[in-house]
């Protein structure tokens, strides 16, 4: 995923940096020119002063160099300065011999600048032609040389000055960018945070006025999607309700017909058996319808906010007792002894009561239905730290470890030949537990026989 911030940063900062670097490069090239010009001006000034001091005394030339001529060059960079004044024939009148005579022809009052090496140091030199005193058209050449320290130093100073300016500029750009991000991107960010805070599966619409205009299409399409989902869910709900209603009504008619048949007297044995079998089938069918309805309800609950789920509080021991009373006749018929071990009767959790009933009933029913012969089904309920543990233990045939994950799938039946099982009981348990954030696990009981189902409910704030 591309970050808007990163893109913005790249597209603002990079061009600024490019401009800065270009400007620095130009400045760098330019500083050399400037420094050279300054140096040339100094050299020229110095050469002029020296040349003016040349005097003709007693048939010879004399030169006393005034301090000013050399003080011109006094900087912190400590340059060395050389000079020489030569006659037209190249004879040294004054100054140093080291400075080689200027070879080219010069007009009077003309100067030339050049670079050379003097005593292993780079120097810039001016060759300045001027008239010799006491002659009409003879001229002397004054040369002044300066080492490059000042030139280079000045150039460096100039460059660093510009560099500092650019650094300040770039820093300002960066600060400006950060502020701009904070300011312009904060609505986007807070919109994202609001989305993240929404409960998963929430069907609430988003407020269009609370986000920047640019996000309006996003909000629009999200709201459309939510509305569509809401419609789908509602029609699904309606479909489930209608289906259940029709099936139940049909079964009610069937039941009435069987009841009528059974009461009509003079039935032979086959007829009685037949009617009993039909009645049993109706009961099983009803059970499956009810289980499917529970699954549909759980499915809907998943879509709804957890706050609504948690709005009711349930005393688990009360639910366990009433479910056991309800299933006691069935257990009795199957010769299953139903009982409790430890049941703490003051454990209250936040959950819809019908979901808890369904879990407990499905577990007990499952244990009873899968009992091959007379057996025992025991429940226990105990606190365990921030959770409470509901265990249902039976001494039936158990579930092999390899099958334990599969039995939670809808319509999965361990023993396909068993007609009483719909394969929905444990699926219901699992899905309700998921909805209630409870953890369900299967194990072999301590004594090694049968099945133990453990459900760990979070106690929450209840």
């Amino acid at each position: 995923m591309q970050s808007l911030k990163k893109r913005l940063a790249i597209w603002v900062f990079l061009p600024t940096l490019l401009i800065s670097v270009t400007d620095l490069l130009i400045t760098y090239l330019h500083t050399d020119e400037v420094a050279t010009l300054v140096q040339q001006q100094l050299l020229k000034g110095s050469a002029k002063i020296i040349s003016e001091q040349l005097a003709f005394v007693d048939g010879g030339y004399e030169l006393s160099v005034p301090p000013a001529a050399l003080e011109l060059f006094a900087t912190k960079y400590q340059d060395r300065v050389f000079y020489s004044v030569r006659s037209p024939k190249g004879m040294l009148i004054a100054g140093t011999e080291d400075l080689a005579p200027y070879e080219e022809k010069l007009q009077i009052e003309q100067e030339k600048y050049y670079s050379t090496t003097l005593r292993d140091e780079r120097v810039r030199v001016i060759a300045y032609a001027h008239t010799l005193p006491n002659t009409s058209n003879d001229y002397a050449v004054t040369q002044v040389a300066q080492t490059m320290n000042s030139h280079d130093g000045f150039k460096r100073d100039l460059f660093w000055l510009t560099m500092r300016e650019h650094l300040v500029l770039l820093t300002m750009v960066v600060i400006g960018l950060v502020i701009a991000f904070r300011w312009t991107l904060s609505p986007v960010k807070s919109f994202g945070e609001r989305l993240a805070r929404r409960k998963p599966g929430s069907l609430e619409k988003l407020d269009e006025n609370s986000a920047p205009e640019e996000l309006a299409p996003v909000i629009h399409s999200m709201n459309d999607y939510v509305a569509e989902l809401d419609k789908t869910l509602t029609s699904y709900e309606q479909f489930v309700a209608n289906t259940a209603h029709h099936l139940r009504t049909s079964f009610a008619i069937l039941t009435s017909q069987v009841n009528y048949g059974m009461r009509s007297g003079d039935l032979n044995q086959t007829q009685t058996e037949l009617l009993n079998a039909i009645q049993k089938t109706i009961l099983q069918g009803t059970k499956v319808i009810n289980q499917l309805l529970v699954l549909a309800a759980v499915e809907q609950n998943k879509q709804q906010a957890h706050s609504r789920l948690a709005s009711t509080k349930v005393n688990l021991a009360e639910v366990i007792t009433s479910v056991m009373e309800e299933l006691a006749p069935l257990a009795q018929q199957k010769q299953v002894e139903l009982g409790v071990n430890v049941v703490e009767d003051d454990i209250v959790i936040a959950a819809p009561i019908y979901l808890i009933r369904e879990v407990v009933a499905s577990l007990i029913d499952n244990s009873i239905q899968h009992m091959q012969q007379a057996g025992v089904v025991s429940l226990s309920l105990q606190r365990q730290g921030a959770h409470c543990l509901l265990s249902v233990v039976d001494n039936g045939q158990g579930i092999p470890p390899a099958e334990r994950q599969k039995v939670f799938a809808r319509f999965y039946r361990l023993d396909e030949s068993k007609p009483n099982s719909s394969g929905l009981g444990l699926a219901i348990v699992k899905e309700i537990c998921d909805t209630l954030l409870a953890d369900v696990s299967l194990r072999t009981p301590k004594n090694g026989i049968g099945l133990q189902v453990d459900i760990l409910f979070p106690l929450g704030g209840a």
Partner: protein
Amino acid sequence: MKLLLVEDNRELSSWLTRLLNQSGYAVEQAFTGEAADTLLMTQTYDAILLDLTLPGLKGQTLLRRLREKNDEVPVLIISAQDSLQAIIDHLNLGADDYLAKPFDIQELEARLRSLLRRASGKTNPVLLCGALSYDSNSKIFRSHGNDLNLTPREHAVLEALIRKSGKTVSKKELADGLVTLNDAVSPKALEIYIVRLRKKIENSGAQIITLRGLGYMLTYLAESV
């Protein structure tokens, strides 16, 4: 006894009518809420069997109108929606009882009998569980109409159980009920009474079930569930 059956499914309505006629009830059928509403303006009934999902005027509305008129006729709802919330809502609206479809005629008639009994003002002194009956006036237990011969302690235990039939009665409750008979009862002794009682009511269809850790419960076992 005259009943009004409000059920939009004509087939179900007709079979239920036949069954109820068989049991000696006079039944009038209404297939819509409006028809029922009209009937209720001119006729009186001993009880109403009301389906909720009716075309047009809904069962809920019919029930509310009835109660707004201060008509206290017992109403038993028979409906295909059986969520706990639906049940609570309807009982709050003024229904007297609720039965989810599909239901067994025996169950329907048992609920109907109890509704009619309550409405007639006298609480029936006879408690029933299958073919086991207890006349709380004469203090006699009968199975299939034959008097049961019980010791005072057995009698006390069975009475406590039949008064709460379908619900668990803890051993402590049972023992406490026996203390009035002068001496404390050991759990062992209680078990012996239960064993004897089970034998004595064997043929009545009523059974005493042990819910280990919780107590005993008297319940009626239908034959072919």
